[in-house]
């Protein structure tokens, strides 16, 4: 795998974030915050009438992008740090992307450090951060 500083990771797009997935994740996380599953709640808070995607789902989109790049082996994701910068709403299109910032060898294993992000199409950057993956 030819990887060097500046290598762009293949972007991963979610064409339409969906409230159904938010409801599943709310149950899995036992998250009582209704902004993730009840549009009345977001309306009452002045956030519009679309539900808010959970931060962990947004994080997973970035994780999935990284793992797809390294052969869909979850063990290859060694570190990730993400800052939450903007909400993602039901119906949004989002793109997870990344760029290699360093390639290094540790204990005989090649690691790639990457800048990563999740952008809302036509909107803001929702997540920004860094990650380290072990290269195949």
């Amino acid at each position: 795998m030819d990887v060097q500083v500046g290598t762009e990771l293949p972007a991963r797009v979610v064409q339409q974030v969906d409230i159904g997935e938010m409801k599943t994740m709310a149950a899995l996380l036992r998250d009582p915050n209704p902004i993730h599953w009840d549009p009345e709640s977001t309306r009452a808070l002045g956030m519009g009438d679309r539900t808010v995607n959970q931060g962990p789902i947004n994080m997973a989109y970035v994780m999935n992008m990284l793992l797809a790049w390294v052969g869909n082996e979850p063990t290859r994701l060694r570190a990730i740090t993400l800052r939450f910068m903007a909400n993602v709403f039901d119906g949004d299109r989002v793109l997870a992307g990344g760029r290699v910032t360093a390639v290094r060898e540790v204990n005989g294993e090649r690691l790639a450090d990457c800048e990563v992000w999740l952008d809302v199409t036509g909107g803001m950057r929702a997540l920004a951060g860094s990650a380290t993956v072990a290269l195949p």
Partner: protein
Amino acid sequence: MITEEELESLVGTLFPGGTYTPEPYVNWLTSDCVLAPELINAGVAHPLMIYMATQAGLGLSLEELFALFKGSSEDGPMLGEWGMEVYSAVQVGTSYTVSGAITGVLRKTGKKTGVFDIIQFELQLRATSDADNLVAVTRSSFIFPRRG
């Protein structure tokens, strides 16, 4: 509103902790609802399960965690930052032990947002059968708006 002194006194508070076993159906539903069906049969848990394991195993529900900081889900607390370092694979069906503590607090005032608190904490994940070896460490911060 919780005072800054009360907030600072929380630093070092240990969470009750607990155990968590990533169950096959939870890993399936997680991989499915984050749109990664290709990872359902990857042989190990989706990396997001580390977030789920540490949250579920810290020994407090989300509302109880918010209450620790004199807040509730009605205040609209949000994740500010989340990160992890992974040292070994998280296996579906294996029991993990979670421990951790509040590591930092900060009160800030924004022109548009008003007063808000940033609460930082760290959680460690170990296989219940192998307490000497760290599987993962997570570091999180929650933002608590303080309205009024």
